[in-house]
């Protein structure tokens, strides 16, 4: 006997209870605290903050817990919360030259003012699983510099810029666009592209950046500088003639410099690709810088031949919240359209068989 499907509401509620149970796992194991995630999975927290486009470590940690460690799901939670927040104004551009540097390296100079500061990096670790981490072993305390100084170090691109060897920082003309408040139109200006890349999926940008290194839009990049640390955020208040500090953010900045042989309008010089991401997110900042440079092809008079150079392609597809939603929406019922296609396929097959049958009869005659 046929029984129409009913009771979606109860089924959904039951599924959600099961989800909550699975999230908790075995109750004999202590529950993860948000503080533990915040402290011990801090790079996951940073990724969720960056792609969630909301600087709030605690909410990002909570989202990771709620999402059972699914970072794209956690990013989605943070984005959905972010939508509900009012916008009070635009801050002044942060000055990464005044960053309290925790890490700063340059691949283009052996040494430079301020030195190479490795900081907390996986670089040069041997990737050997460490069974000691199964236990409660506490790490040895790290050495601290005798004179940490102020932390402020000149940016490598500023050092190069003095000699005119590298294009200058682009002039800022007023308030930058904001793709969360205005619909995107193509071609998008660079600051909007950078916003999209900063919110974009790390894996997607990594693959695209990688493709530029393999000849799809070859741009000869050098990592002029990667720096990570805290910067001050300030806002101008109408009626006051000084800016007001709002707080500090940890960010990772990557400046790639690229060879450029010059064009009719511009002399030969190094050009830049730029990456700036919340938290400690070096892979993302580097991939972003590679993509930014590739997307400047038209502006610099280069041929647009590769996926990474195609602004509409990259910007339309880099957002993992959009991508996951649309890919996963295929789970929703589509039986009405499928019915329409089923009817069409049956009809096309019947026509096909008629033709085949006709030919066979002709052949037999």
């Amino acid at each position, binding site marked *: 006997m046929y029984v*129409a499907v009913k009771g979606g509401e109860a089924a959904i509620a039951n599924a959600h209870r099961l989800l909550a149970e699975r999230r908790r796992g075995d109750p004999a194991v202590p529950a993860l605290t948000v503080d533990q995630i915040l402290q011990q999975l801090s790079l996951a927290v940073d990724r969720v903050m960056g792609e969630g486009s909301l600087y709030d470590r605690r909410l990002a940690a909570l989202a990771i817990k709620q999402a059972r460690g699914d970072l794209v799901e956690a990013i989605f939670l943070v984005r959905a919360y972010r939508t509900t927040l009012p916008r009070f104004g635009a801050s002044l551009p942060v000055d990464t030259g005044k960053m309290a540097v925790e890490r700063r390296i340059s691949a283009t100079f052996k040494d430079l003012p301020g030195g190479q500061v490795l900081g907390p990096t996986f670089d040069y670790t041997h990737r050997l699983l460490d069974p000691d981490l199964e236990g409660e072993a506490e790490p040895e305390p790290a050495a601290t510099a005798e004179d940490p100084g102020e932390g402020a170090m000149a940016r490598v691109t500023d050092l190069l810029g003095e000699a005119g060897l590298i294009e200058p920082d682009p002039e800022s003309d007023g308030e930058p666009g904001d793709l969360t408040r205005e*619909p995107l139109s193509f071609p998008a200006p660079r600051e909007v592209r950078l916003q999209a890349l900063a919110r974009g999926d790390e894996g997607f940008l990594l693959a695209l950046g990688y493709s530029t290194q393999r000849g799809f839009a070859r741009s000869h990049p050098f990592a002029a500088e990667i720096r990570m640390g805290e910067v001050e955020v300030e806002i101008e208040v109408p009626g006051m003639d000084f800016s007001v500090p709002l707080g500090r953010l940890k960010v990772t900045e990557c400046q790639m410099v690229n060879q450029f042989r010059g064009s009719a309008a511009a002399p030969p010089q190094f050009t830049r690709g730029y990456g700036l991401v919340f938290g400690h997110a070096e892979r993302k900042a580097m991939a972003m810088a590679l993509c930014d440079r590739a997307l400047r092809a038209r502006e610099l008079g280069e041929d647009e031949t590769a996926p990474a150079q195609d602004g509409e392609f990259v910007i339309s597809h880099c957002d993992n919240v959009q991508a996951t939603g649309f890919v996963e929406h295929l789970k929703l019922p589509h039986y009405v359209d499928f019915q329409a296609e089923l009817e069409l396929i049956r009809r096309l097959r019947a026509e096909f068989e008629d033709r085949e049958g006709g030919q066979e009869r002709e052949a037999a005659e």
Partner: protein
Amino acid sequence: MSTAQEKPETPYNFAYLDEQTKRMIRRAILKAVAIPGYQVPFASREMPMPYGWGTGGVQVTASLIGPDDVLKVIDQGADDTTNAVSIRSFFAKVAGVKTTTHTKEASLIQTRHRVPEMPLSENQILVYQVPIPEPLRFLEPRETETRLMHALEEYGLMHVKLYEDIARHGHIATTYAYPVKVEGRYVMDPSPIPKFDNPKLTNSPALQLFGAGREKRIYALPPYTRVESLDFEDHPFRVQEFSEPCGLCGASGVYLDEVILDDHGGRMFVCSDTDHCEGRREAGHRGHLAGAMGAPGAEAAE
């Protein structure tokens, strides 16, 4: 099902969206109404449900809905498909509005993939969830190009595609999201409704609004707007026909779902519009398989 509450108890604004966002969407809706069939870009927000799951329709509904509205939500024509249930309970929670499954009681109907069978009235608004609003997208993936094609009213590519179907199959092989032309100007995607529903779009007394959240577009068909499905003089537009009536209520001339009953090829056809089907059964109509069904409307849970 109907539960009107005084003031919804959520930490969010009425109907979830903040007022600034509603203003932005309302401005886009009014421009959409003024330029029927044209896709107005809007700064779609991240909603608490995934992109592709009705965020455009939800944002349009959230910008329209008021305390006096009665909301119906359908997916595939049914009120109790999981996503319809989820969206309906979202609005019951964040707007505290009355909800209904009865088409004629609703002032606002949000839909995915179907137009209700019952003709709509002047006091109703139909909100469609749209995945890909651009009818030319599968012919030309670039927004910069398709925008120009709409500006220049350059729709030759679409006709070529449809004509290729005819050359190959003898008829147009598009069964859903079948493109329409609005008031002789804009080619428009009617959302993935079966082409069976296309004739309901033209000259409707109800306002029809289309929201695409991920693609950030809103478009509209005002009431009494001329909407023509694209076709050729020698190959006029035709809708699907079903060889048998609804097995439950005996309706013909409605869109049917094929339901597989067992693994030896047993199947039946039933109304896709569940409210329409239930209404007919309550009025005493019986399909040829209704005998096996027990009392009308007495379906078991799950």
